[in-house]
């Protein structure tokens, strides 16, 4: 089932990820099979420790499954070299984290430019692409500010601009509203929805907020104890 004929953006086939904790074997993700279509906005719902962030990391290529296969646009991440996985993270995936994960020493502009440096984008093209990404998240006025000079919502928007700057096809968001108040969190989710609709970007968002998931995502996938509880239906 590999190759370009695959019409899913991401597909997992019986993926498991287990860790050795002393004598015990912990199955963080246990035999999960799920398909996410291009342009779909999927909420990965579950309580703390349900394995949703681990599954997201596997989709990002930050981690490798213990068994099973993960396909991103038809390419099996489990069979990729670490160099290819880095390319996958650079060109196919954009990531947003609960803790924003901006580099505190860099300005907003430099933070957004960082993925372009890693992807070896020509210097002449960088300024335009940074501006484009920052304007999309409506932060153009704060380019020279450092993260500490931005509010939580602004930091998350800056992280979003950084995730978008390499024009990925899939956006993976790990609890993007977890550190934000309700109104700011809603604003970020509106932005995600807008990006999904205007750019046709596939979004997988990890959250434990069922209400928000229902309001913004096309589909809710629920996990508990590392297993898939429900793969949901498109709203």
């Amino acid at each position: 089932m590999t190759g370009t004929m695959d019409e899913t953006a991401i597909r997992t086939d019986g993926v498991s990820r287990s860790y050795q904790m002393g004598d015990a074997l912990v199955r963080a993700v246990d035999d999960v099979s799920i398909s996410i279509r291009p342009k779909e906005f999927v909420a990965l719902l579950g309580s703390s420790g349900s394995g949703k962030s681990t599954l997201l990391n596997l989709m990002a290529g930050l981690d490798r499954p213990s068994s099973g296969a993960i396909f991103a646009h038809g390419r099996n991440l489990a069979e990729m070299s670490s160099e290819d996985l880095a390319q996958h993270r650079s060109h196919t995936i954009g990531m947003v984290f609960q803790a924003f994960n901006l580099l505190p020493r860099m300005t907003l502009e430099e933070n957004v430019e960082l993925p372009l440096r890693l992807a070896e984008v020509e210097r002449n093209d960088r300024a335009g692409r940074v501006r484009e990404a920052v304007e999309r998240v409506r932060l153009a006025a704060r380019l020279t500010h450092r993260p500490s000079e931005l509010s939580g919502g602004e930091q998350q928007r800056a992280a979003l601009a950084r995730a978008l700057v390499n024009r990925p096809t899939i956006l993976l968001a790990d609890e993007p509203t977890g550190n934000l108040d309700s109104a700011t969190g809603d604003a970020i989710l509106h932005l995600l929805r807008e990006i999904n609709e205007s750019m046709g970007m596939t979004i997988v968002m990890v959250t434990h907020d069922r209400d928000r998931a229902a309001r913004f995502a096309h589909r809710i996938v629920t996990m508990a104890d590392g297993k898939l509880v429900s793969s949901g239906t498109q709203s």
Partner: protein
Amino acid sequence: MKARDLTELAGRNLREALLRNSLTTLGIAVGVASLVAMLSLGVGLQQLASKRLSRSGLFDAVFVTSRANRGFGRPTRPDPATATPAKILDAEARQKIASVPDVVEVYPEIRFPTEVQFEGKPYPTMVAGIPPSARTDGAFEGIKGAFFSGLDVDEAIVQIEFAKDLSTQPDSLVGKNLTLRYAERQPLPAEPNAGRNKSGANSSSEDGNLSPGFSIVPREKTFRIVGVVETEPATGFGGFGRGRLLIPMQVAETLRIAQANDLREILRGTSSKVSYDSLTVRVKGPSQVKSVEDAIQAMGFTTFSLLDATKSLRQVFAVFDLLLGIFGSLALAVASLGIINTLVMAILERRREIGILKALGAADRDIRRLFFAEAGVMGLVGGILGVALGWLIGSALTFGTNVYLRRQELPPIDLSSIPWWMVAGAIGFSIAVSLAAGIYPASRAAKLNPVEALRYE
């Protein structure tokens, strides 16, 4: 990631922990400085020794004698290789030797004891003929006054000790005249049957046609003193350090002064022709000495040079430099531990940052190169600072030594020398050591699990 981006990020990271990275860089600088100071001392001493020796004119010279002149009392033996009589060092031989490739000049050793009249008083001294090449060989560096203005001028240079004999103020001698009194050799007119009358039964001359001999005539010649020199220039191996009144070689040759070998030449029947006891051959450089020596030996003459002595000297200094380099490198080895420590600390501090970079698409290779770049920048900056610091140490050592030498009334010296190859080598070595020290931290940073790194608080 491209090299320019890597360097920029590395520079930014280094500026973040400024104090720690500065101290680490300073450690490298001290290590490089110790290496540079040690090596500059070695090179400086080597240059000092080489300069002194090259000034002596011994290492680019070949001393030529005739096989006939191997010692008094020995008969002229035929050359065993050719079974012909040993060749005489005459004007023709001198011409032939002068035409050998890489030979700069050929001159005889003219040195004779005589008496000098100065301001009405007689002074016994040793006079030596000085070849034109002596002007550039360093022996006349620091001369008070000037070198001879021409090849055949009646000018003299006085060695300082003799100058002190002539005057309590040696510098004031320049421009004054002195009179040289010497014994000139004048050939006697040939007498018919002279050979038969004088040869006797033990004559070694086969045709019995002996030289008519010569008479000794006292002469005087006035020279103007043009300079006073500190060192006693060498005019060849035999003349080393023995001339106290120096006159142009061409003038010395025209004086036809009676020499020690004149008596022997009468017996050989060669006194009517110009011949030399020995010739000194000045070669372009020490590396050409061997080929010139071979060529002259092939002509049937005996040669001698100090080529082997220079080889030994170079060997001694190479070992000396090696030992100094090893001691100097010890400090750099200690500094490299500082780099490892700093970079390992940086990994712990920037664990999360490494995780973020990997999440954004950095490959293991990028992280490794980033840490390498940071180590390399520390090595480069430390190397440049170290060379500067080493130069300062060398200068301070030279200054201190010269203060001491001045108190001892000795001329100053350049104790340390930092040639360009040492500057480039020290900076290159500093970068190489820093990169080697960065191998472990860089590979450790590259292997960090991004998921764990992102969880790190």
